[in-house]
């Protein structure tokens, strides 16, 4: 296809459901009442909620129309850096909707939940294999929850040694949630700057690591998409002073099957099943942020743990040193089924290949665009690359304008203004599931936008032009939010 992919088409306006329908209209027929009615005491009843009266077609058209205003990874490339918006194979949905999984009730006794428990147990084993760790808890509900769990584990570890500490080292290239997770656990985050190459230096860590520092939180690859080459040496410095190394594994999509993070000196890591292991997220479903750790931290993992006995799988609560329960029931089970399905579908070789393609695709984009867009760190990247608007500022065009214009070309915008270490950052993560043709079209679009910035900056300033909703007034939305329907 040579023509530009972004085109205008007929999109239907749609009111709120409350503005649709007509009194008495109904989408379902309730069976006739065949028992005597017994009205409740007047004191216990009140007016019901003001639900609109709608037919089935009213509702179906409503949501179908809204879905047509949307853009998802099933629509097109979604290179949102740091978010790993890879295509989610539909077989995952099929497995998750199997009756035995989909309709299992969390209150069923262990004996009647053997299939579900076995799946969780096996998935834990897969994640142990992938990370090289000794134990896993699948309870945390998402990435930041995994981070908090990791911080609680570090806290429990030091408490057990009667050596409580107050600080955590966090580099400027860590995920934004890291300092919040540490602070929520009562630690004081100590910021440390990455070195000239965009990665952390062992020297700078050694200089601030002390006996009151509980450990370090490292995102690897970091948010510049760069591999933390000095992590093993950094881990040595941390361990020497009695600290622990926490790895934010949200960017594991670059590493799975290539290396085991444990070999880098990592003690605790969280993974994002919804990114790396391909389950819908970002409005498409909940996350799962399992935590994996080494043997010496295992006693503190959340309960219940899943154990295998002679007579089957059991939920085991007898772990007196545990940090306790951190989630209702056992986490987001549906996400686990999808991730399990993904890992089985790809197999060990397939996972390795996925990571290799993810890295290859990001480097391809980096090389194709580095003569057009300013590339602050010109070195091989991992699964994502970070550009900036520096080359375009003289046209008074900013990162926001470039991102908005990309919508007209039929691509979801990348992550912008993050990481903060790059002013005007444009963070592109293509993922492994985009083909070379798709990547080439993206590169062409980015180059065309760069030309427009020079020749017709107003195209960018007022973009997007083709979407249902044009440039939003984000400032007014933030200053005067309208929070009711």
């Amino acid at each position, binding site marked *: 296809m040579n023509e530009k992919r972004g085109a205008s088409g007929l999109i239907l306006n749609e009111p709120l459901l409350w503005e649709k329908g007509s009194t008495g209209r109904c989408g379902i027929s309730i069976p006739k009442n065949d028992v005597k009615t017994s009205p409740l005491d007047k004191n216990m009843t009140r007016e019901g909620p003001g639900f609109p009266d709608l037919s089935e077609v009213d509702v179906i058209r409503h949501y179908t129309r809204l879905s047509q205003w949307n853009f998802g990874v099933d629509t097109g490339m979604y290179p949102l850096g740091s978010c790993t918006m890879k295509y989610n194979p539909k077989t995952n949905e099929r497995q998750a909707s199997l009756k035995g999984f989909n309709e299992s009730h969390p209150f069923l006794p262990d004996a009647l939940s053997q299939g579900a428990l076995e799946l969780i147990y096996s998935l834990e084993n897969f994640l142990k294999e992938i990370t090289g760790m000794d134990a896993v808890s699948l309870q945390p509900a998402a990435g930041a929850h995994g981070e908090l769990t990791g911080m609680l584990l570090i806290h429990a570890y030091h408490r057990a040694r009667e050596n409580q500490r107050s600080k955590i080292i966090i580099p400027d290239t860590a995920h934004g949630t890291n300092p919040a997770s540490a602070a929520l656990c009562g630690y004081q985050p100590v910021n440390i700057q990455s070195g000239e190459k965009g990665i952390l230096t062992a020297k700078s860590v050694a200089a601030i690591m002390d006996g009151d520092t509980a450990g370090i939180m490292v995102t690897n690859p970091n948010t510049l998409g760069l591999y933390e080459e000095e992590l093993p040496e950094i881990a040595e410095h941390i361990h020497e002073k009695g600290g622990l190394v926490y790895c934010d594994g949200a960017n594991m999509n670059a590493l799975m099957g290539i290396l085991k993070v444990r070999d880098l000196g990592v003690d605790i890591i969280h993974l994002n099943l919804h990114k790396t292991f391909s389950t819908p997220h970002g409005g498409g479903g909940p996350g799962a942020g399992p935590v994996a750790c080494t043997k010496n931290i295992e006693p503190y993992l959340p309960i219940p743990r899943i154990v295998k006995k002679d007579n089957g799988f059991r939920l085991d609560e007898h772990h007196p040193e545990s940090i306790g329960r951190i989630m209702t029931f056992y986490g987001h089970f549906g996400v686990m089924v999808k991730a399990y399905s993904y890992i089985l579908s790809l197999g060990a070789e397939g996972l390795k290949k996925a990571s290799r393609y993810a890295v290859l695709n990001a480097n391809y984009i980096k090389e194709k665009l580095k003569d057009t867009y300013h590339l602050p760190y010109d070195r091989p990247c991992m699964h994502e690359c970070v550009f900036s608007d520096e080359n375009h*500022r003289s046209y*008074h065009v*900013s990162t926001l304008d470039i991102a908005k214009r990309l919508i007209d070309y039929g691509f979801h915008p990348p992550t912008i*203004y993050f990481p*903060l270490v790059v*002013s005007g950052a444009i963070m592109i993560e293509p993922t492994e599931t985009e083909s070379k043709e798709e990547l080439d079209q993206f590169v062409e679009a980015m180059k065309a936008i760069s030309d427009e910035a020079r020749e017709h900056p107003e195209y960018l300033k007022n973009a997007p032009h083709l979407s249902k909703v044009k440039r939003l007034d*984000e*400032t007014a939305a*933030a*200053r005067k939010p309208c929070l009711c329907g």
Partner: protein
Amino acid sequence: MKEISELNLPEDIRYTKTHEWAKKIGKTIKVGLTDYAQNQLGDIVFVELPKIGESFSKGDEFGNVESVKAVSEIYMPVGGEVVAVNQELESTPELVNQNPYSEGWLIELKPTHPAEWDALLDKAAYLVELKG
């Protein structure tokens, strides 16, 4: 975004490396964000300021500003006690963008060590910082 040559940097105030300005008003000092800072941050949507009576040392974080792009901390140009805060910013944070040196001021403080004033940058030194 503005080029450095387009920035409004008054002569009669002092600056910090972290892009705050300070202005002597009798015995107190008024503090705000520089034109460079407000321009870099973009549209400011929320300003969090300390309470009157709180004391901070030079370089301490005393609040933060949130723009459509990011949240940034703001630091004390000199140590002191907060004697006034700009209440207007609660409902109209855009004043920091519109008039960073007048209606967009942040706090007024009573300095603990008046000598700390001398370490602040003048316009020429601040310009050197900006040009990096």
